């Protein structure tokens, strides 16, 4: 059914359709509308779930951990400082191979305090063992949650999934979306059937400690399964297309990349702006393309190489900083291309930090500076601030 709703509302409704049993929520801007909407839905009986109003994000994640271990489907959402506070629990959930979906609303990290959008928070989680999907628009973010549960609970995966959603840009804007029906979602996503659970009739111990004779192999299995989960991400996206008729890419989504000389890579909503700009450039006769990186973890190595294969230049639009080193996504793109037959120069263009707008002008600046040979740059800067300091 088509509706004109806020991005947060789209997520709340999609999560509701996934029939969560336990929702734990701690409020933090700009995630608040999601948990408020879910709260109202539970209060009205539209969702049949236990809603736990936790006292911190660390507990929010811990409640989800306990609920999933006890055999129920769970959900939480947070951002920025909240993600950082629950980091050790995120490692714990992945390490214990518990399926879970959390919405990671993307917001800048303190200090300085900022409630506005960038990707520093979820980029900091790239080694936790969580799969990461980045949504371009409201339709995609709602579809992603339904896919995320299916991916996470798959026996070949058994790793939690974070659906990354740009704060304010996506949470607080209204778009027209097609919301599936409960019947459609039930047909696509069956109930959670745990491989192991806490059950007095069949008791197990979960979370035993591992000495050096075991830990490395457990870590290896996580890496092995995380890499193998790429196939599941693709499979679920294809199944979703067959069931719902919608496709926005699986691990990547190239736009006008086939004959592109310069390809811009982006994650999340910036891709929407990129595509518009690419249309303008194409109109000017410039062979530019936009490559959406939809699945960041696992990193789509082969698919990226193939998509970038013919490009003479790559510009990675990064809404995060690998402080003291290189761009985070750019470093991984460079690593993917290292030693390949075609190794175009990769420019890391950091922009949009702390909610700074990324516009066509920003892309023009990135392109110009990349063509001038800069390999790591900050775009859209206010030079007068730096001169003054």
């Amino acid at each position, binding site marked *: 059914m088509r509706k004109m709703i806020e991005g947060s509302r789209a997520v709340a409704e999609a999560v509701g359709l996934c029939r969560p049993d336990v929702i734990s929520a701690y409020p933090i801007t700009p995630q608040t509308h999601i948990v408020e909407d879910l709260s109202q839905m539970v209060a009205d009986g539209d969702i049949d779930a236990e809603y736990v109003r936790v006292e911190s994000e660390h507990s929010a994640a811990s409640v989800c951990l306990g609920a999933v271990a006890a055999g129920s489907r769970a959900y939480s959402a947070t951002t920025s400082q909240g993600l950082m506070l629950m980091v050790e629990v995120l490692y714990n959930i992945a390490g214990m191979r518990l399926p879970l979906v959390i919405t990671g609303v993307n917001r800048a990290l303190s200090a300085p305090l900022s409630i506005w959008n960038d990707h520093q928070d979820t980029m900091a989680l790239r080694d936790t063992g969580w799969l990461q999907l980045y949504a371009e628009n409201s339709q995609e973010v709602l579809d992603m949650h339904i896919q995320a549960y299916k991916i996470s609970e798959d026996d070949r995966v058994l790793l939690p999934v974070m659906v990354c959603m740009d704060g304010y840009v996506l949470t607080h804007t209204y778009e027209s979306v097609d919301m599936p029906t409960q019947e459609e979602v039930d047909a696509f996503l069956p109930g959670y059937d745990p491989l192991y659970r806490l059950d007095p009739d069949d008791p*197990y111990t979960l979370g035993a400690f591992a000495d050096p004779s075991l830990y490395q192999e457990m870590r290896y299995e996580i890496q092995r399964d995380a890499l193998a989960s790429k196939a599941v991400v693709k499979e679920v996206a294809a199944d979703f297309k067959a069931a719902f008729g919608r496709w926005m890419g699986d691990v990547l989504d190239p736009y006008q990349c086939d004959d592109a000389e310069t390809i811009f890579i982006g994650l999340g909503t910036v891709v929407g702006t990129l595509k518009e700009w690419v249309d303008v450039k194409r109109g000017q006769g410039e062979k530019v393309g936009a490559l959406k990186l939809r699945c960041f973890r696992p990193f789509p190595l082969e698919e990226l190489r193939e998509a970038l294969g013919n490009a003479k230049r790559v510009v990675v639009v990064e809404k995060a900083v690998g402080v003291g080193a290189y761009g985070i996504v750019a470093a991984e793109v460079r690593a993917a291309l290292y030693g390949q037959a075609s190794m175009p120069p990769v420019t890391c263009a950091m922009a949009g930090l702390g909610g700074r707008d990324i516009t066509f002008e920003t892309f023009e600046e990135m392109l110009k500076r990349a063509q001038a040979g800069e390999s790591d740059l900050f775009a859209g800067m206010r030079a007068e601030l730096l001169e003054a300091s």
Partner: protein
Amino acid sequence: MTATKKKRRKPPLGIVTRPGSSLRNKTGSWGILRPVFDWEKCTGCNTCETICPEGCIRHLEKKQYEADMEYCKGCGMCAEACPADAITMEEEHR
């Protein structure tokens, strides 16, 4: 674990530990003392069986207590706590 229609994978390595699998660890080898129970003095209060940290003291008949030397660490709590002084600790290198 649920065994449903579809054959499922085994849990990943190290995730699930079987209940009571500690029984393979014979902690009796730790101790150099063993409790000796004087069944004549015993009043059947059951203190020793209750407090043993290993849970390896039992009685088959009333007032006939004994310790499982496969697990007894020889701590001596039972002997000290026995209100009837019916337990003594003797040296035994296991």
